[in-house]
């Protein structure tokens, strides 16, 4: 249904963070960076942010909204939300298995 998330290459991890940031509402670039830093501790730089945003927009997973005084907000699309849900489910499975395996016997 969707292009594989892994096709994003080195932008896969930043893209996951961006989609997570946009999941609860539109944000512009700087707001995305500060939100990501707040919920993940990752200090994303502008080059990485826009490298990932470019690819997410091209795949139709985020869409730009009208600019507000040069700052352009982005919002997650339905396909983007589906991809994010799929990725988070995959990560949740990894977390579950990982916790089970590192737990003391």
């Amino acid at each position, binding site marked *: 249904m969707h292009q594989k998330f892994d096709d994003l290459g080195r932008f896969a991890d930043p893209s996951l963070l961006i989609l997570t940031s946009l999941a609860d509402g539109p944000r*512009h*670039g*700087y707001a995305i*960076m500060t939100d990501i830093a707040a919920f993940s501790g990752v200090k994303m*730089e*502008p*080059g*990485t*942010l*826009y*490298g990932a*945003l*470019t690819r997410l927009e*091209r795949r139709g997973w985020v869409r730009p909204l009208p*600019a507000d*005084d*040069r*700052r*352009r907000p982005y919002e997650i699309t339905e396909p983007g939300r589906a991809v994010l849900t799929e990725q988070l489910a995959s990560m949740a499975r990894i977390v579950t298995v990982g916790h089970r395996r590192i737990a003391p016997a």
Partner: protein
Amino acid sequence: MSGLADRLARLMVSCYPRRWRRRYRQELLALLDEHPSSPRTVANLALGAVGTHLDPAYRREGITMSGPGGPLRTTAAVAGLAVGLVVVVGGLLALDIRHEQQTDGALTASYAMGIAVSPNTRLGVTAQGTGLGGAGCCDLVWRIGAHPKLLAKFPGAAPLAFAYGGQTVLAASLTGVTEWSLADPARPARIATMPGPGPAQGIAYAPDHTMVAVAYAKAVHLWNLANPAAPHRIAIIPAAANTAAPGYSSVQDQIAFSPDGRTLATTAAHHAVSLWDVSTPWAPRHLATVGRDTGPMAALAFSPAGSQLAYLGQNGKLTVFNLTDPAHLVHAAIPGSPATLVTWGNYALSYSPSGTQLTAVVVIEETGGDRRICTWNVTSVSQPLAAHCRADNFPTAGAFTFTSNRTAIVGPDPRGANKLSNTLSIWPTLPG
């Protein structure tokens, strides 16, 4: 971080493919206005530019770098760009430290004499020192946020006023006022000049954005700004000089438009205030002269409904006029203030959005230049006004202003001998 890192970061943006820049450049530059740039930012953008050139969606534009050729030649060109960027970035960053030291030294000699904040509170402009052939330097453009950042400087002085929703700033020049475009805040561009008999002493922008009043020593000039690129003068109103106390170096905020733009308040003889009907701007009509002997003016403000006018004298006395009954006025002294406020620096006066609270930032000379924030309940001016003041441990020099929503006071922070003009500070929410 440094201004040089900011400039390098912007340079890196211009290295992205042209088609990419057409789509993303403005919003990325807007982001850089808010993001403190570091060498990491510059390197990240350089790698981003190289990566975008290698992106199949943009690779065709590699031809502009490599000339006609196959993929190998394009790749080689991009690799060359990468190496070049690394060399340029590395070399310029090596110069960065020296550049920073020079900037600090130059700015240490001055402090802010004026400040203006854009209506959306994202940008501020400060006037450093006298700026016009004196000890000052220039006007500085700041991005206001959690981490205020210096973006650019341009030749100008106080007073200052924002116009056109923050896209334009008006700044005093040697012979009047100059309009500067801040469409790209990192690159202020001169739009037009409004000549006058000398440096402007006060600037007030009409609420409908079509007119500006510029105060000089003996007159106020009204300019039509419907076409920002071609302002034209429409009237001259006689006014008295706002005689500064000895050594008092700033005479700003001496003119103000009422919220409906129909009334202009100017200084009059004997430290009184003249009210002018400017609803027909080319034929201003004198309405009344109110108050007197309240001392040279430090600040002036209309209430949001336009029913009151507040005047803060350099003698530390606040006067509130009820404009429906100008003969009736109420004085209030700032508790604990001496006969005069300090003879330098600036003061700010602002009504709360509801018009029930009036707040002033004042500087008390006898206590070593301490600043105080005083608030008066001005629901009724029929009774003596009781002030609620609190001392604030904020800087003793520089300019102050209230943002449009009163969520902050913004002023250059001179704390630290070597950082005198390099920091902009934001104060907490005001009462009311």
